[in-house]
């Protein structure tokens, strides 16, 4: 039995604004592109990687814990 092929991309786990999680099949990807794929306007959220705030041009990958936090609230 041969070895399983190395994956060319990895799954990335993202914690969404509603606290749900989503796994997207992507290798390293910019925050901007990730938000675009999730149809989220970057101006309405902040994004953290492993608890640290990251700008839209940061590249995030499979080992990161990505959290997207919605910032627009009433009141």
């Amino acid at each position: 039995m041969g070895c399983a092929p190395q994956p060319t991309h990895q799954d990335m786990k993202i914690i969404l604004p509603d606290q749900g999680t989503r796994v997207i099949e992507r290798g390293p990807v910019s925050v901007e592109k990730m938000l675009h794929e999730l149809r989220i306007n970057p101006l309405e959220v902040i994004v953290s990687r492993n608890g640290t705030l990251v700008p839209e041009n940061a590249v995030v990958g499979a080992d990161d814990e990505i959290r997207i936090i919605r910032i627009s609230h009433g009141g």
Partner: protein
Amino acid sequence: MGRKKSPVDPPVCSLCEAPAVMNQQYSRRSLCSTHFINDVEERVFQVIEKKKMIRAGDRIAVALSGGKDSTALLLLLALHLPKWQDVSLIAVTVDEGIHGYRDETIRAAERVAENVGVEHSVVSFQDLFSDNLDTLLKGREEQACTVCGILRKKALIEGAKKVRATKIATGHNLNDEAQSVLMNVLRGDLPRLVRNSGIDTADSFLPRIKPLAEIPEKEVASYLFVKGMFLLLPECPYRGFALRADVRSMLSGLEHRNPGTMLRLMESRKKIEKYLEWEKVSGPLHRCRQCGDPCSGDLCQVCRLLLSLAR
């Protein structure tokens, strides 16, 4: 010879090469946490000084809902407080009585005020208007934001008077201000459109100041996050009813596709304000025959609203 920058290299601060936490499109800079915090704190102080928002002897009632904007405002004012002579702060929270929402934000407000060592006072719709918002809105939920907006403003003024404040500071950010401009255009409300943005005294004898009015919402939230003070709080159950919800979404889409839209909107408002005379637009100032507050007609907005709610 230095290594060529790769697209996967982490973005770095334009001022010190530490990892960036924020891209400011309008300043064309990326900033690390330290320089970003300094930048926000400095800009807020400059706005306060430029518009002469705070003077010696002022007692500032900081409208503190417990949400991100008012929390950031209280932190920033408390930080700069030693720079002003004989100025004091007091946090004022309005409890509208919104089940499943306001209790948690009031607790957050209490904690923030305690953390920064500022006295805290709560004023409620129940005490002022003999009913909470949930009860007042039964059967007219679609009017929630109009009713709440009018009564909350009144409650804040009464709360500020109670603690002998000389001014009220609110946490409106650039997005809030740009949304208001667009909403006033959509409603055809010229007096509100040109109301002075620096120190507003139009519907009260207590001037209102907005020190965060030039800071984008994302930067306010980011400032709190970097300072470890960002809290996830419940959303107001009535927010979907607001015209503001539609305008917020539309404007944020426009700003994303056309950066600078909000700033240009604010510039347009300034130009209109420059060429119009406030007195001519708003008409003569009267006193409400019921409560004596300044207003443009026979009855003020609050008394008119309370009469209609009693029907």
